[in-house]
């Protein structure tokens, strides 16, 4: 799933809504679209769509209608949780409106742009959007991939009815190896574009050719990955657990040995390329 932020940088709320409208229509031509709106005035898990005379009656409430339509409200949900939920919901695109984190490529409406924003386009009006080229550029960004996304994907494989096992591996940023270890702040991964993807595709093909293995998904993030975040996923759909476990282990070992990706570690007082350390 590709994620795009939209930020009001002086353009005004109504213009932002029309910009979001055009973007959602453009993305919808290529896949399912999710929208997350950040609104600091939402409080106590109540939603504007509900009758304000009703209380939600729980910390999280889903109102379900016919055909799977739904409305929800609740507490304790972050922007990251919402984006993850859209990925799990099989969205190809997510539009995050109004959140000033700067972590997603962003269309700014108006030119009063906060520092650190990753700007893909700045517009004054919806007509300023060059949609085709914008969507192409969004597609080139690092996709948002979760373990659950990949698990759902292998379950849709052609031979899934013969598969009784899914095994997964998640590699994540380890802050420290021992109590007196200097904590890692983040890792930064550099990838040999094109060649890394070819090697990943070849590895996936080799693993999927094994007897009893029906689908394999491999994903490695690039750029900055912070302490505690996930880095890499290997997911295997197989007939039985033995092939599933073996293939997951071989998959991560071969990925680490063969795919041209390079890791720089940044601790609170040092930075170094990991291959330079014993």
């Amino acid at each position: 799933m590709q994620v795009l932020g939209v930020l009001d940088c002086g353009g005004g709320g109504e213009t932002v809504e029309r910009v979001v409208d055009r973007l959602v229509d453009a993305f919808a031509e290529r896949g399912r679209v999710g929208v997350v709106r950040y609104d600091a005035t939402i409080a106590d898990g109540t939603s504007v769509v509900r009758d304000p005379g009703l209380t939600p009656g729980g910390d999280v409430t889903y109102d379900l209608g016919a055909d799977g339509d739904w409305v929800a409200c609740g507490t304790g949900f972050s922007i990251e949780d919402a984006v993850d939920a859209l990925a799990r919901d099989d969205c190809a695109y997510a539009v995050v409106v109004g959140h000033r984190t700067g972590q997603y490529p962003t269309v700014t409406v108006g030119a009063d742009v906060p520092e650190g924003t990753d700007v893909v386009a700045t517009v004054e009006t919806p007509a300023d959007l060059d949609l085709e080229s914008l969507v192409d550029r969004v597609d080139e960004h690092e996709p948002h991939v979760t373990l659950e996304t990949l698990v759902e994907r292998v379950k849709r494989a052609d031979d899934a009815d013969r598969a009784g096992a899914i095994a997964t591996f998640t590699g994540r940023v380890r802050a420290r190896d021992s109590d007196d270890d200097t904590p890692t702040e983040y890792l930064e991964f550099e990838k040999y574009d094109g060649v890394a993807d070819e090697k990943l595709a070849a590895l996936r093909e080799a693993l999927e050719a094994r007897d009893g293995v029906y689908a394999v998904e491999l994903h490695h993030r690039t750029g900055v990955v912070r302490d505690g975040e996930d880095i890499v996923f290997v997911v295997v759909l197989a007939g039985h657990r033995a092939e599933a476990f073996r293939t997951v282990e071989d998959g991560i070992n071969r990925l680490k040995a063969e795919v041209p990706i390079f890791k720089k570690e940044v601790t609170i007082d040092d930075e170094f390329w990991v291959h330079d350390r014993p």
Partner: protein
Amino acid sequence: MTQQWKLFADLAELAGEREVTVDTAPGETVGDALDALLAANPDLETRVRDDDGTLRPEINVLRNGADVASEDGLGTELEADDELALFPPVSGG
């Protein structure tokens, strides 16, 4: 002929750039293109080759995405517009 070198990780930091174009003559090899790269970026020399001028075993050399070890190593003959890559041991995951 021109060849494009792509450098990664600490090699790119030592060279101060990620992409370096070198000129070679027809019939020249990957080793000749490496000589040209190191002549233009002397800071890379000791990182990439040992005192005898031998490529260090942990350094990878790729031509058009394939390890030159699977061809004729540094003796592999160049073709026009090859993309060459030089990098340390991979360290993903």
